[in-house]
């Protein structure tokens, strides 16, 4: 296959971009969810 | 009070405020000349090269100085707390926008009046034969810069780091204007100068579309 490595690189880049993006979104989500849970408890406590 | 009258009052207020200190014009004119001189050091242009790069340099210098000059347009109202007076004034936000936009257009025009002779001198371009047509292109380009810049000045005022933010927002949005102005100016600097209809049409389209958008969105510019 001609130019196989270029094709492979493009495919990899494609996946990498979405994985990284989804990873950052998931991390931000986790942080917000943690904050929310903490605050809910804070409200319930007293 | 009609919008036109209110806009005229805002315009007169801007001019009077500027004439009192001349801070804005002093700094912008000096800056634009520094830019042009620095460019000539960087390229050491011969007459032929000047014709090739000249239009680009001219418009980049104008865009940079515009993005610096437009910043205080709304920022000064914020720091002097006069923005509340503007909000409470019984005139439409569009009239305030229009007044400020015309003031910025005027200040930019004054800057250009100083810039053009210096540019012609340093880059050995003879502007005299094409001056009339060049003024048309300059007006259309500057109008676009003032229209967009005044809106974004109001936008940037509400953010932190506004001095850096304004060029960041303004310059990429002005890409079509830059391309059209540079190309139209390049046609005027050519051996057989002509006013390129296509590029003038693009400039007119830019001015109309952005001015109409500014008009439609002006209600949201001053609100708190």
């Amino acid at each position, binding site marked *: 296959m001609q130019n196989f490595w270029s094709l492979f690189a493009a495919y990899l880049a494609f996946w990498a971009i979405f994985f990284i993006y989804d990873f950052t979104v998931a991390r931000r989500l986790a942080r917000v969810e943690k904050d929310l849970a903490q605050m809910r408890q804070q409200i319930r406590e007293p | 009070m009609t919008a036109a009258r209110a806009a005229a009052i805002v315009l007169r207020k801007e001019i009077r405020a500027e004439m009192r200190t001349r801070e804005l014009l002093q700094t912008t004119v000096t800056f634009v000349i520094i830019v042009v001189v620095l460019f000539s050091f960087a390229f050491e242009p011969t007459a032929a090269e000047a014709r090739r790069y000249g239009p680009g340099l001219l418009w980049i210098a104008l865009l940079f100085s515009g993005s610096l000059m437009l910043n205080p347009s709304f920022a000064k109202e914020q720091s002097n707390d006069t923005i509340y007076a503007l909000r409470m004034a019984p005139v439409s936000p569009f009239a305030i926008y229009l007044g400020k936009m015309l003031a910025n257009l005027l200040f930019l025009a004054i800057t250009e009046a100083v810039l053009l002779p210096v540019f012609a001198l340093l880059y050995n371009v003879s502007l005299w034969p094409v001056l009339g047509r060049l003024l048309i292109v300059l007006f259309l380009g500057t109008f676009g810069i003032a229209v967009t810049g005044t809106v974004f000045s109001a936008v940037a005022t509400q953010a932190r780091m506004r001095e850096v933010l304004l060029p960041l927002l303004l310059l990429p949005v002005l890409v079509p204007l830059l391309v059209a102005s540079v190309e139209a100016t390049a046609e005027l600097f050519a051996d057989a100068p002509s006013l390129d209809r296509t590029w003038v049409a693009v400039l007119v389209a830019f001015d109309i579309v*952005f001015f109409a958008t500014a008009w439609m969105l002006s209600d949201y*510019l001053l609100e708190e």
Partner: protein
Amino acid sequence: MKNRWLFALIIAALFAFAGYAVFFIAPDEATMHAIQRIFYFHASSGWAAMEGTGIVFFANVAYLRKRQPKWDWLAVSAVEVSLAFWSVVLVTGPIWAHPVWGIWWAWDWRLTLTLVLWILYVCYLVLRTLVADPERRAAVSAIFGIFVFLGVPLDYLSIRIFRTQHPQPVLFGGPNSGLDPTMVKVFFSCSALMTLLMILLVIERYRLERLRYEAEEMRLVIEERAETKSQNREMQRRTALGG
């Protein structure tokens, strides 16, 4: 959380199928051979990115008219996701161009326009980080977003006229350039899949923005409570002293 994994699994399965289609079902292109297969990811990402860009504009206008925070959440989500898709377009493009055109980048109108839009969306996100008040942030970024979107046709116009003096290295010109029917089928399945991915990512990002908003509201409530509590304590202390 369970849904998330299920979604991920479905997406992965669909992409495995698309990958299979792209590499094994789609016929070999006569002059470019294997490298032409990038087209299926590249162009379909471009479609999804354009759809995302349309959503951004719609959400911006809707926010300014309706003033509901949900439109702002949608706008920022669509900007981020479109930015990811535009990034794919901008990365895979040069990888394809290098063996085919012999250069990484040409200042062709399509490339230039994509790059300008990419930069403008980055500016949009920068602008958002610099405005603290949520309502002001939403209004200000909606105004900027509308200007960006209305500038796109003008950008297209100016770049198109500007760059046609150079030879246009366009090797595929859309559906009527004589694409093989199987290629068209594979391409449309890829586009549909990308659109699905785009929508799912926007939904996920939207949820993040909504939760952030809720967290912000809750923080205000807690602060207010703490304040009234300390005020009450102060009052009690004073009455105790007075009595």
